[in-house]
């Protein structure tokens, strides 16, 4: 299964190795790892808490991956999103894409992240010295996701 939503940390190396091992049609492997930063516009971050909509979150990610596979020639995709309490420098999310060519792997990885940010049901609460705050969807993320509507392809 190429989608996991879990409280446990993930082993980036093992995930990428699993994607590529023994599959020599793959010429390009792109990974995005999202990490908890120690600061935000609300101040210094003590921790974040992530929740999701079980059932819908898996479905939403699956839909994004299917769309990525329709748009680009991919040989493998892996998405892991953590939930629960996380601390600065912790890994939050992994999106890895494999393709024969790097243009496809790069575009698909970025596309999946942009759509995940705006259409997968996850919520983040940030704990800073100012208190706890549920974050809003970032306007810049909405803009980034919209780029993929306009263009027919990135090749």
């Amino acid at each position, binding site marked *: 299964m190429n989608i996991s939503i879990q409280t446990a940390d993930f082993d980036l190396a093992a995930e990428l190795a699993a994607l590529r091992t023994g599959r020599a049609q793959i010429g390009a492997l792109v990974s995005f790892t999202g990490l908890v930063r120690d600061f935000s516009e609300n101040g210094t971050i003590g921790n974040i808490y992530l929740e999701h*909509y079980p059932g819908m979150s898996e479905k939403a990610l699956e839909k994004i991956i299917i769309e990525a596979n329709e748009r680009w020639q991919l040989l493998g995709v892996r998405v892991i999103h953590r939930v629960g309490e996380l601390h600065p420098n912790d890994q939050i*999310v992994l999106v890895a894409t494999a393709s024969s060519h790097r243009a496809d792997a790069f575009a698909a990885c970025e596309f999946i992240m942009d759509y995940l940010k705006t259409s997968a049901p996850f919520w983040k*609460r940030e704990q800073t010295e100012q208190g706890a705050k549920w974050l*809003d*969807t970032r306007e810049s993320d909405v803009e980034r996701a919209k780029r993929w509507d306009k263009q027919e392809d990135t090749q």
Partner: protein
Amino acid sequence: MKIKLLYFGRPRENLRLSNETAELPAGVATVADLLALLRARGPEWVGELAENRVRCAVNQELGALSAPLHDGDEVAIFSPISGG
């Protein structure tokens, strides 16, 4: 009609409610109607469920607040999504 209601993110936390089953009176035809009904529960609900502060999904698909409701639907109400 009867629906399953789920809450996530800020409203789940502030209303201290994850899910409930609701029997909707006649005239409640859309998510927006449902929100109006829920806001009648008190000032805390008015604040949390203001239309500009919530998003929704019907049967696990993101939708507009104008989305129509049907018997047996699973309706989720939540703050703007912010994962990744």
